[in-house]
């Protein structure tokens, strides 16, 4: 190759090099940089430490239970196991719960001079919103129209009727909620816009003063257990 040709070739190769570099820079985006400042880092650190603390506490409680099981096993008793079953039944919503809380009533609402269709039902969306709001302000147990809300209770529309679990809900609806701090729940609901949301749908949500004793019934149906089997009844694996 002549000398001049070589220079041209080198020039073209250089252009190719530039293109390649730019292309690589474009396709291989740099990883997102950590732009947290020291306060955000501290907040995140605190959050993680709290999580760690909580996990450790949980671990400790399980270990304690395990130790008690062992002791009981040696002593030949079963009270600890029964206590655990009772606790689990309580967590699953199979027991009646009493405590301080609120009683909320949802009723049709019509302003003076209102001429329009009367409201016949409360929509599931509105009920879900109310449940979210109650949970937000610390409600522990909730029952809608006598139906206990558990983790598996569905609030849905079935052919135009609002159902909570397996029960059809008709106006007026009574919602009971138990909280550790009923006053906080009350004041939270008092400032929450949830009453306006009900008013938009021509419903009135009245909230009682905190009551020292609110009774929430147990869940009517036992949850279906599909994927668990008892040890004796289970199929034996080869």
């Amino acid at each position, binding site marked *: 190759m002549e000398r001049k040709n070589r220079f041209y070739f080198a020039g*073209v*190769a*250089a*252009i*190719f090099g530039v293109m390649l570099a730019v292309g690589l*820079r474009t*396709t291989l985006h740099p990883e997102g940089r950590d732009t947290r400042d020291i306060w955000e880092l501290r907040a995140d650190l605190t959050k993680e430490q709290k999580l760690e603390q909580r996990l450790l506490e949980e671990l400790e409680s399980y270990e304690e239970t395990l130790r008690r099981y062992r002791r009981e096993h040696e002593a030949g008793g079963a009270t600890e196991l029964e206590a655990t079953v009772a606790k689990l039944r309580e967590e699953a919503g199979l027991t009646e719960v009493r405590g301080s809380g609120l009683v909320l009533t949802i009723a049709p609402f019509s302003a003076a001079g209102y001429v329009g269709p009367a409201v016949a039902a409360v929509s599931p969306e509105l009920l879900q919103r109310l449940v979210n709001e109650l949970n937000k302000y610390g409600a522990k147990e909730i029952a809608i129209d006598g139906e206990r809300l558990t983790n598996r209770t569905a609030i849905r529309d079935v052919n135009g009727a609002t159902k909570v679990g397996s029960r059809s809900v008709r106006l007026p609806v009574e919602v009971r909620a138990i909280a550790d701090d009923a006053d906080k729940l009350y004041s939270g609901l008092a400032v929450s816009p949830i009453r306006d949301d009900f008013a938009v749908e021509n419903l009135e949500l009245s909230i009682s003063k905190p009551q020292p004793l609110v009774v929430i019934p147990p869940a009517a149906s036992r949850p279906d257990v599909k994927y668990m089997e008892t040890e004796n009844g289970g199929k034996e694996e080869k």
Partner: protein
Amino acid sequence: MWLPLLGLLLGFAIGVLAGWEVPDEYSHYLSIAILAAFDTLIGGWRAHLQRTYDETVFITGFFFNIVLAATLTFLGVHLGVDLYLAAVFAFGVRLFQNIAIIRRLWLAEWAKRRYNREKS
């Protein structure tokens, strides 16, 4: 032999240091242009080894291929057909052919050298 490599490295360094970036929506064009340029470069190398290198053909080919590939991509984007695949296919096949030829030429040269060494 070393001058083109030096040029390539120099260009690459300039590209990296300059810190240019192409907007995301044009990265397709750049990729296809890079493929076209690479094909032409390898083609030029093969031509050099076969002693059929022509400067005018090489340089016009370099720019023409880049522009053509980018145009095809542009057309494809606007017609809704992935026309850039045509360019990818054509350049890809040619790349493999050219590299195969270069490999054979090297092999032949290596065999010849060994033969000469054994003879002497």
